[in-house]
């Protein structure tokens, strides 16, 4: 009977088979101190939300359900008056913590408090390499400087920082300079060309999509590092953790099978326990079936789509069908395939 370390990929597969929600995203609040022009959240001033005591009891339920990773997000999670109490609650339950913030509210003392929690990462959005570009995207003067101050305060505390950039037509000419900003600080920069409609259905954010030429340049740059997004599918596999290993709870207690999936909530934790919602929801089972079907559908859709990550939740938003990719997704898959060929 040897004791051995088990590869984590196998454990992920085990979680998938058991529908164990390893990753949970908690949207603590809709509130946000920025007004990003392409944001999906139209409720920046909405103060409604679950009581802190309920968030903490939800952490107990997540522990019981088998969650390992908890992401605190929003809105802007640092505007929640009990953010630190909830973040400490995550760690007190031996769950791994990620924080998604715009960074503007990170003071020296808050950075020190966050460091004590040993988050896996704090992820911040960089919207441009110049203040004018960034502040135009956030519609908040001074946000560029505030965000970088926050980044530097977190780094000073030894916290792992990740910069994320929604690639848009506003910042597509600043990719190299944004990389420089990240490189100077020794942190990764993740560019993402996907924009989504607002949660209320308003398609306004899509007008800010980056040009195909810019998306191609982005994939080319990733190709130089061997980092073009790639999905290694096999027939009968699963597209993603939708309905099985991912879970999201919005500020009002609605539970979703992932952060993007808004077709219908699985239930509400004001009316039932999270364990009941997760284990008894027919919508969760339906979403999980979509994740299975999406894998094979993409495999049958040609080499470019088969090799490119696909999000059924975004497809649902764009086309009304979680198995039908929209034109932009198809275009991006083809651009990625071209860049892959060019870098081979």
């Amino acid at each position, binding site marked *: *009977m*040897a*004791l*051995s*370390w*088990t*590869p*984590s990929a*196998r*454990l992920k597969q*085990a*979680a998938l088979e*058991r529908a*164990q929600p*390893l990753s949970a995203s908690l949207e603590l609040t809709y509130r946000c101190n920025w007004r990003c022009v392409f944001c999906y959240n139209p409720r920046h001033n909405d103060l409604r939300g679950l009581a802190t005591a309920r968030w903490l009891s939800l952490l107990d339920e997540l*522990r019981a359900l*088998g*969650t*390992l*990773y908890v992401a605190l997000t929003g809105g802007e999670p640092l505007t929640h008056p009990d953010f630190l109490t909830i973040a400490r609650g995550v*760690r007190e339950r*031996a*769950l*791994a*913590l990620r924080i998604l913030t715009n960074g503007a509210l990170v003071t020296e003392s808050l950075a020190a408090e966050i460091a004590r929690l*040993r988050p*896996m990462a704090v992820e911040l959005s960089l919207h441009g390499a110049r203040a004018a570009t960034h502040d135009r995207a956030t519609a908040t003067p001074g946000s560029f400087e505030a965000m970088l101050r926050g980044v530097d305060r977190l780094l000073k505390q030894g916290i*792992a920082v990740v910069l994320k950039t929604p690639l848009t037509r506003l910042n597509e000419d600043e990719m190299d300079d944004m990389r420089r900003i990240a490189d100077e600080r020794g942190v990764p920069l993740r560019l993402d060309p996907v924009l989504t409609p607002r949660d209320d259905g308003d398609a306004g954010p899509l007008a800010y999509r980056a040009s195909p030429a810019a998306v191609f340049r982005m994939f080319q740059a990733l190709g130089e590092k061997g980092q073009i997004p790639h999905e290694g599918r096999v027939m009968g596999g699963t597209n993603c953790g939708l309905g099985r290993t991912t879970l999201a709870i919005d500020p009002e207690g609605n539970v979703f099978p992932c952060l993007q999936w808004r077709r219908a909530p699985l239930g509400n934790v004001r009316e039932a326990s999270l364990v009941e919602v997760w284990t008894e929801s027919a919508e969760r089972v339906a979403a999980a079936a979509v994740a299975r079907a999406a894998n094979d559908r993409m495999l049958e859709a040609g080499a470019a789509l088969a090799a490119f990550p696909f999000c059924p939740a975004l497809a649902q938003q764009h086309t009304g069908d979680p198995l039908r990719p929209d034109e932009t997704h198809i275009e991006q898959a083809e651009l990625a395939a071209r860049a892959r060929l060019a870098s081979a």
Partner: protein
Amino acid sequence: MPLRRHREIAWQQIGDEAVVLSLAESRVLGLNPTGALLWSLLEERDEDGLVAAVVERFATDEPHARDDVRSFLSMLRERGLVQEA
């Protein structure tokens, strides 16, 4: 005397196995069923108690179980995943 899991870890059971994240080292470790059992009990039981649990669950003899328990706890200490209670 039982040990304590280090504060700077995160962990979860998956079936009869477990995954442990060392947050200080950004490392992910998987534990097989024996490791997962020991990990789940190590704050409650001393070495003798852990050996008894392994003998009971895995139908092995006591000397082999004790070797495994010692080897496992030693690995956890070396990797900084536990501390003395």
